[in-house]
């Protein structure tokens, strides 16, 4: 029974982390119909920022996530301005491939500058702290990341659904030309959306440094999972991505423990295929 609880909670916590990592990607996709292939590398950059801030200035990642969030907001906006904008509307997969080029660039730049060494902050505030809940042991860093995930996803949802800015974003997503006729500066909206997408992954990366090692390849699997999460959730649906992330986390955790650890990612990708074949537009897609 305690095994079951532990596996369940591990799955939920991984799911929350995946939700945080993919929230920004989902928003970008929903508004612009663009997949940012460099998403995983954005995550890596955010982790490096918080790692170096923690390592050199000894500031805990519990605070520096603000810095990485802001930096990634800028990186996202710059990526849109210089890379995505130029490739929009050209070939079908042009933005995806252009950002793939960016991901190669970022990954190998970090490899070249920081070496492929694994870097882990030790002695952070939350490091190694745990508490017990219903017979399961919960690690505090993961728990805090989970809480942040809930806050960020809720804030994004609120922003899109309840604010004037959000309505403008929605309008742009539905029909760019019509939105422009209504006086919405869609260019600014796109810039903002890309920046926000970056900021979300910046926050995620920052918090992850409290318990995960940073290295140039760290983004790889996370970005694949994020792709699966957003597609499973359905076109740009934030609640959809959230539900999908939790589902993926649970599938990973339960397969990992009850079937075989090597099969956990097979199950994650298989569940995507199964769901997507039944609902070709994802769980919450329209």
């Amino acid at each position, binding site marked *: 029974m305690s*095994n079951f609880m*532990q*596996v369940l909670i*591990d799955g939920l916590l*991984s799911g929350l*982390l995946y939700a945080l990592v993919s929230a920004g990607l989902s928003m970008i996709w929903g508004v612009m119909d663009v997949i940012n292939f460099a998403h995983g590398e954005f995550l890596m950059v955010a982790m490096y920022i918080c790692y170096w801030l923690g390592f050199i200035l000894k500031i805990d990642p519990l605070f520096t996530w603000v810095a990485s969030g802001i930096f990634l907001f800028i990186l996202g906006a710059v990526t849109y301005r210089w890379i995505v904008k130029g490739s929009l509307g050209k070939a079908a997969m042009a933005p995806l491939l252009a950002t793939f080029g960016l991901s190669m660039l970022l990954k190998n730049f970090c*490899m070249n500058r920081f*070496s*492929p*060494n*694994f*870097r*882990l*902050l*030790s*002695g952070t505030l939350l490091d*190694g702290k*745990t508490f017990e809940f219903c017979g399961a*042991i919960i*690690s505090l860093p993961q728990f805090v990341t989970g809480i942040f995930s809930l806050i960020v996803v809720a804030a994004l949802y609120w922003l899109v659904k309840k604010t004037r800015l959000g309505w403008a974003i929605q309008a742009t997503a539905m029909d760019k030309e019509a939105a422009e006729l209504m006086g919405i500066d869609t260019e600014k909206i796109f810039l903002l959306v890309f920046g926000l997408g970056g900021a979300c992954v910046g926050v995620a990366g920052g918090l992850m440094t409290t*318990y*995960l*090692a940073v*290295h140039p*390849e*760290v983004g*790889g*699997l*996370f970005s694949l*999972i994020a792709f699966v999460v957003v597609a499973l959730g359905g076109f740009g649906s934030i609640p959809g991505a959230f539900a999908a992330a939790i589902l993926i986390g649970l599938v*990973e*955790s339960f*397969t*990992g*423990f009850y079937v*075989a*650890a*090597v099969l*956990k*990612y097979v199950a994650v990708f298989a569940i995507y295929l199964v769901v997507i074949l039944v609902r070709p537009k994802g769980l919450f897609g329209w």
Partner: protein
Amino acid sequence: MKQSKRTVFIAMLALAAIFVSSAAFAAEEIKVGALFPLTGPAAVSGQNCVNAVQAAVEVINKKNADINDPLAAQEGLVGGKYVIKVVPADHQGKPDVAKSEAERLYNQEKVFAIIGCYNSSATKPASAVAERAKKLFLCGCSSSAALTERGYKYFFRHAPTDAIESVEFVDYIAYLNKEKNAGIKTLGIIYENTEFGKHAAEEAVKAAKKIDLKIVADVPFNNGATNLNSEVQKLKSANPDVVFGAALGGDYSLWVRTMKQVNWLPKMAINYCTGYQNPAVQKELGSDGNFFMGGMGYSPELAKQFMPEGIKIQDKYYTPKSNQPFDSDSIQEAVMMMVLAQAIEKAGGPDTEKVREIIATQEFPSTMSLSGKVKFSPDGQNAEALSVITQLHEQSYKTVFPLKYKDFEPTIPMTPWDKR
């Protein structure tokens, strides 16, 4: 189109020729390829290995009256007639690249021999190239036992294999059970699902049978995973007395931290040549890495005691290049360079067949090997390969087994997390 392609090619060849011939030497150069992962996930280790080979070459080529190594005192080889030149090459950790780079080194760069390749999966195809071309291939630290089970004639390997290490692990457990009443009956294996991890696990299973160690958990995992929660949970619920681990770099620290998180430890945890012996990983783990054990062919503590000349080489030539002491992988590549040079010296020149014959049959003194000598058995495996079991205490590797080298009373069982 063809014409332009050929022009480009000829121009490139000419450039390459200038590049190569520009270094004029009085003594004849013998080129030796150093084929390692200089980029990709294992790049740091690969770069260390190249530096180690280069350190060995400096000892060989220069006059080093202060180092007591067979080739240190004289300049070059065969009375100064030859010097060694290292040609570094990068295989990125990919078998196909290793194969084509090995071909380039032998055919284009005309190297006499190659030392490499760190990753077992890259060593395999690269040494197959050598065997087909009847050229020498010397391997320092690739540990897959399969490498020396292929019946190759031109392949020699210094490192103890997973098989040797596994046997030593269970010998140690048998000793503990008998002498110290440790009561270790069950075994869990956690390993990355790659060529390296799988080999190690297979050998562990074979070795465990010998002393009726019951395997209660066999947990392969995907390397580079986002978390190891379910893997560790599986170990915890099976609760083995001892765990054999084969996890590299970041996966190793993730594994240790996840065990801390679920507040579980076996009585003993012994690692193959992995993240455990990487000082950088241990530095990040800090005191969490304490009391774990692992097989090693080298440690700074052992070196002080058993290989003083190796330390001199390290301080004079290796550390200035790589800003760190030798580790158990890189030093073995340096040893292979030394063995090759000694064999060339004895053969009187770079004659592949003669040198091969000498490497295969003779025993070589080695100041950088724990056993002090290197001798290859007919399959190309170093019969004198020694590995010791160490336990980590505050980032220092204490030797606990074999008893001949023991300098420390190990903490068994490991101190639980909540009592640290």
